[in-house]
């Protein structure tokens, strides 16, 4: 991993103990993502895409191998250390939006900044929601928003802490094609504007083709040429 890398993954392996013995879902995957660049992880269902994303984002611990985010060895941090790292460096967008149902759009967006005790969370949340076209829906609850609107709130939340890298898990998986197009445009626009690297998991090869780098997985192994 060099200074240009924001994410460095080396020989990453993940296994689970099951009643039928040990199950390896990811085997010795290695790749780098450079700062401000975009990367897609593709592969059939069960190939280990989501597992890889979770490990890269510090949501889980690898069985073997290393993950470095902005030069920090994620695999050696404890859960609270990884949580701090996620809060400072990362942004997330999920297929099912994962908004907090009891919080308004504005409050959902504010959470990452409030967590680290930064001032001006409200002002920045309003600014971002206006940017994603939801300036008039600030105090609406998720249940009062459409799927596309919810994903736009999730995008605003993902960018509020000015992340260095954004992880997106099937960001358009729950949306119709028209809305998907708008969300993808917004995602890439925000990404470019803030210089954030993007790692996204998708089945959509058209979307994958829009990224700078494609990692293809099959049976837990990387099968694309290095």
């Amino acid at each position, binding site marked *: 991993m060099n200074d240009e890398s924001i994410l460095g993954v080396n020989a990453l392996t993940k296994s689970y103990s099951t009643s039928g013995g040990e199950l390896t879902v990811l085997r010795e995957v290695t790749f780098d993502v450079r700062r401000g660049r975009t990367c897609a992880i593709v592969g059939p269902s069960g190939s280990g895409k989501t597992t890889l994303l979770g490990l890269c984002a510090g*949501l889980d611990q690898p069985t073997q191998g290393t993950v470095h985010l902005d030069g920090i060895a994620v695999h050696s941090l404890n859960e609270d250390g990884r949580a701090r790292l996620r809060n400072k460096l990362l942004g997330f967008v*999920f297929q099912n939006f*994962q908004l907090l*149902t009891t919080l308004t759009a504005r409050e959902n967006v504010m959470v*990452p900044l409030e967590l680290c005790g930064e001032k001006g969370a409200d002002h920045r949340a309003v600014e971002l929601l206006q940017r994603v076209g939801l300036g008039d829906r600030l105090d609406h609850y998720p249940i009062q928003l459409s799927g596309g609107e919810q994903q736009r709130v999730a995008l605003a939340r993902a960018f509020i802490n000015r992340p260095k890298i954004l992880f997106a898990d099937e960001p358009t998986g729950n949306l119709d094609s028209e809305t998907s197009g708008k969300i993808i445009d917004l995602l890439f626009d925000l990404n470019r504007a803030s210089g954030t690297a993007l790692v996204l998991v998708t089945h959509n090869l058209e979307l994958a083709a829009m990224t700078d780098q494609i990692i293809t997985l099959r049976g837990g192994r990387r099968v694309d040429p290095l």
Partner: protein
Amino acid sequence: MSFNRWIWLMAWRDSRASRRKLFLFSCSIVLGIAALVSITSLGHNLEIAVAEQAKSLLAADLVVTSRQPLSERAEQMIEGLGGEQAREVSFSSMALFPNSEGTRLVQIRGLTEGFPFYGAFETFPTNAGEIFRNLPGALVEESLMKQFNAKVGDPIKLGELILPIVGILQKIPGEAMVFTTIAPRVYIPATEIPKTKLIKAESLAKFKVFIKYPPATLVEEFVKKRRAPFKELRLELETVEDRKRDLGKSMNHLQTFLSLGGFIALLLGGVGVASAIHVHVKEKVPSVAVLRCLGASANQTLQIYVAQGMALGLLGAIMGGILGVVIQFFLPRVIQDFVALEIQYSIAWVSVLGAMGAGFVICVLFALVPILPLRRVSPLAVLRATTAVSHHRDPLQWLLFGIMGLGITGFSLWQSTRWYHGLAFTGGILVAFGLLALVAKLLISLARRAITPSWPYVWRQGFANLHRPNNRTLLLMLSLGLGTFLLLTMYLVQHTLLIDLLPAGKGRQPNTVLFDIQTDQISDVENLLKNRQMEVLQQAPVVTMRLASVKGRAIRDLLKEPDHRRVPNWVLRREFRSTWRDQLVDSEESVVGVWPSQKIRDSIPISLEEGIAKDLAVTLGDDLEFDVQGVSIATHVAHLRKVDWKRMAPNFFVVFPSKTLEAAPAFHIITTRSNTPEAGAEMQHALVKNYPNISLIDLTLVLKTVDTVVSKVSVAVRFMASFILGTGLLVLISAILTGRYQRMQESILLRTLGASRWQVLQILVIEYFLLGFCASLTGVVLALGGAGALVFYLFKLPFHPPLLAPFVTMACICLTTMTTGLIMSWGVMNRPPLEILRGE
């Protein structure tokens, strides 16, 4: 754990969709806290009342009591005590109200001038407490006046004396009014007592001397040095401090009982809170995972829900505190009859805040049980729901259980007068909770295994509701079972005491006891009864005596032995009423030895009741020496027998053979039976008119008066039980409501698939019936065990539970559970599926 502004803000935001539910959860602990607040506050008010009314409790600085006429030596010693003195002689005898011709056994008290030195009689008219001694006249207790419809100015006949009633007695300093209903009191001037001609040498009278000292006298110090010589003469000395200690003890017992009842309600509420929070936080797992993903630490996410638990506890404590203060207005009325004090109502803020604090802590501790696992929610759950919570045992949870156990034990020990009572209470709670939880687990397991495809669909669904995820089986078993257990236990104990102890009016059982019959009156009284077709069921002579020595050791020496080695005081100092006869009677059974027949050497063989023999630590052949009004009688134990004390017959600890006691001063007891109340009243009237010295106990009336006393006790018990039952009902409602969403989803699905409302209704009815049935059945089994143990070990009576009560209880609990369940689920069945989906 530091709760910053964001934590509180998130707790508030997170609660938005569930505030109504959270409010309902907090209601579970409201009644428990209210009970504790009102009881601890009452305790504080009682302490104040005891301190303020200390002297009027005794109405004097010192009281000397004797159960026999004061000897010359006793008189000299009492003279030596100095101070201003007043005297009272009291005994039981019959009173006749000539106007209504009513008769009743009363306690006659003859008073000299001066009493009470502190406090005052409360009478109508108000000056009657002063004038009855001068007129002379009688002060008659209110209950007695009401019974015979008497009014001031009417005459009352006591033995051969007729006096006008000059006042109605409403309150006597230092005496609780509830106990007066058994033998209502009649005060007359001491100078009039001889005119009644009721006191004879063998009469069971009590003699008291009340003494007042100048204000600066240190009575306690003064009495300390004099207790021993007075004790030797069987004279009891009682100071204000002694009375305060005794009263403090009985107040403690009352308060302990009420507090522990309140505590059970609070614990039950705590279980309700834990269960409701469990459902609440389970719904919040996805939110926790999102927060963890966004960078919140495990502690931060935990703090959000702990803050909610604390807010819930605070809300419950505030509501409980307010309700408790309101209840405190009524609580003194509930217990006023048991205490000899005028309880002034005031809010004891320290006690109120203390009880609220205890309630708050209990609520938070119980809420922590389901909240703690949130620490282990993985952020990975945002990607895969199956990885939400780690199922490994959390050491912190064990620590929490330990703290809860210590807290419960600590509270029980604090509230109990003896440490082993506290431990027994904790043990009892654990056994009850444990057994109910075990039955719940068995029921869940049985429901899982029992269902077969051959069952009708609604039965399969109803059973399945008991074991599937998020079932309410354990919680409802605990709340309903515990409520059933406590309420039925109280009823069964009350029933046994009332019905089994006093089996009046069946077959040839006596319902009237005549006593104080002189030897020369026996044949006349028997004739009087015979003329009225009333059979003499039993006749026994009675000689009053005291123990002088046991196995050659004098009583005074035995009394000096250390407590743990000594025969109980009451046995050594009690007055034995013994009889003579040559055979066992129906209520007795031979245990060991030969029935006493003839005198061997200078010692009389006697038959001893096995219980008293055990207390005295004597067996066959051991010597006992009795003092029969100054005459010493040597005896030895020749026979031990078992006595059925429950039988309404003259029963005795000591039975002498014939031709041994006939020369001693004796009175006789006759038991008989009147077939109608009118015949009984006519006989009583004739008896009192012709033989005023003979007293009579109407067992039907005793049954009524015992019922009155037990009913008053039951008011306090039911008062406490209502908190437990109320809490159980709140827990039931909140448990049903927390499972409502799940029920709604399933009902909608069933109805979408073609199930009729009737089928959905049947499924719910089956589920709630099974829960109510199993919970009440376990509660009934626990109650039978608990009441049986109480009756057998505490009241030393055989336990014969009424057959109907357990079934009626089970039917009521099943019906309540089904009704509450159906009312709370009504919307599930009646609203169209689409509306429900939108509404939720």
